[in-house]
């Protein structure tokens, strides 16, 4: 069983569109949406939720105003500026608990956060594990790890060939959690200076964690000079270039219809996406 993650650095380069097409093209797989704070893959896979689990991670301080003598020790030690006027701002609190330990009146409790939910679903393309981070909640990296663990478990139990993971944008905590221990990271970039800038950073992160990265250029025909630069970059860093997808309005049309693009049209875009999947199969 192989784990493949689709990442991009820059947001909006087409990760989810491509991942959804892989759901349609791959025969034996479990799908996982690890972009837990702005999950979109469900809009193309139309899951029927079979299991819902609560996700709790981290704690937030709460001051009992009856017991508090306003000595101010908690405010002094908090490095996150989370306590003002003997009240905790839950958004700033990082749950370190130093205030709880230092309070001489034992007036502070640490309360578990309900940070989100995760789901095991059935789709017409097989099992799908996804999640929803609570509004303004933290710990998305831990939720990503939970989604991945469960997708992997199902893949092993049902003897699937792949876990295909839709990753988040950026290079921080949730990306690292999506990336660690995968077999292949497909980096979807676009033919823009921002695209190449962000590709270099996220490819650097994949390299840092010893993950094999391959690159696909989306909307490559938008700027052929930049596409050339991305090709040069890949060549110079021994990163495989596995796809070049042209700009086409059929991609948006498929999205509006709620379909993976390979199920919506039969054109150059879908031809390239199929080729991309074939190339990944051969890695």
């Amino acid at each position: 069983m192989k784990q493949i993650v689709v990442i991009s650095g820059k947001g909006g380069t087409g990760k989810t569109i491509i991942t959804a097409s892989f759901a349609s093209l791959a025969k034996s797989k479990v799908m996982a949406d690890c972009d837990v704070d702005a999950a979109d893959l469900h809009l193309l896979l139309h899951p029927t939720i079979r299991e819902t689990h609560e996700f709790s991670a981290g704690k937030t301080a709460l001051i009992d105003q009856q017991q508090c003598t306003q000595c101010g020790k908690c405010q002094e030690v908090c490095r996150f500026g989370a306590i003002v006027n003997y009240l905790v701002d839950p958004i700033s609190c990082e749950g370190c608990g130093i205030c709880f330990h230092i309070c001489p009146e034992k007036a502070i409790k640490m309360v578990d956060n309900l940070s989100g939910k995760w789901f095991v679903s059935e789709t017409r393309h097989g099992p799908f594990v996804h999640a929803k981070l609570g509004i303004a909640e933290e710990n998305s990296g831990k939720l990503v790890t939970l989604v991945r663990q469960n997708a992997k478990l199902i893949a092993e139990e049902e003897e699937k060939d792949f876990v295909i993971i839709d990753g988040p944008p950026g290079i921080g905590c949730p990306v690292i959690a999506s990336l660690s221990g995968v077999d292949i990271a497909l980096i979807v970039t676009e033919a823009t200076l921002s695209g190449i800038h962000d590709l270099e950073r996220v490819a650097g992160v994949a390299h840092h964690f010893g993950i094999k990265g391959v690159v696909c250029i989306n909307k490559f025909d938008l700027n052929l000079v930049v596409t050339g630069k991305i090709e040069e970059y890949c060549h110079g860093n021994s990163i495989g270039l596995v796809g070049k997808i042209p700009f086409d309005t059929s991609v948006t049309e498929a999205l509006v219809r709620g379909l993976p693009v390979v199920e919506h049209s039969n054109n150059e875009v879908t031809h390239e996406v199929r080729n991309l999947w074939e190339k990944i199969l051969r890695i």
Partner: protein
Amino acid sequence: MIIAVASGKGGTGKTTIAVNLALSLGNVQFLDCDVEEPNAHIFLKPEITYTHQVNLPVPKVNQDRCSYCGKCAEVCAYNAIAVVKDHVLVFPELCHGCGGCSIFCPEDAIEEINRPIGVLEEGKSGSISFIDGKLNLGEALAVPLVKAVKKAGLGICPNNDQVTSNNHLTIIDVPPGTSCPVIHSVKGSNFCLLVTEPTPFGLNDLVLAVGVLRKLRIPFGVLINRADVGDTKVDEYCQREKIPILMRIPMDRNIAIAYSKGIPMIEVKPEYKKKFIKLYEKIEQLTSG
């Protein structure tokens, strides 16, 4: 006045809008809080005059003084320090820098040393003062760097909305998503402009972003980019929720090509300069009441 430009979904045009709004108005401060993938510098091409390292304090244990009592591990909420028989193990990448271990160590055996997590750059692009942060590759914690960018730009750490009275206009380019780095970027802003696109993904992530802003009690409005593609559901949603739509930008291949080359859209479409000034006037009206 602080205006944050956010979106939920990535690639809707946050940086384009933030940059062109700043260029149209001139004489503003620009903070790029997308420290994982900062791109505004590609368009603003600032002359960087000051670069400095941003650190997080992490524990260093003096083994001579340590009695292996385990208090540090007991108070650490992040499992960043562990005591095994006569060894103390520190996992710096898990440490949030709260300082608990050093405060509670009964032997005074823990000092804090700096661990670099990224760099902060300050400079000028014409009349725009510019600050961005660049997270080191492989570094998980973006929030301390976001806070450093805001502190450098706004003078004080923008916790607890202390920054609301600021005469200077500051425009913040926010990272995509809805989790911690986004919250710390928009926190303390007077207004948040949500850039979306009229597709199911755009709508889904707009709804999530609206949830965050309502929880943070920050006034907001919507800008619909590539307004003539997709469907009408973003419009219907905004109407239902009484969210003002402040501007629409139709799909234009010339804007996309300029973007691909790192050229701000008002250079190829100068007529937009007036529209961005108008956008700012609408935001002023919305925040003055």
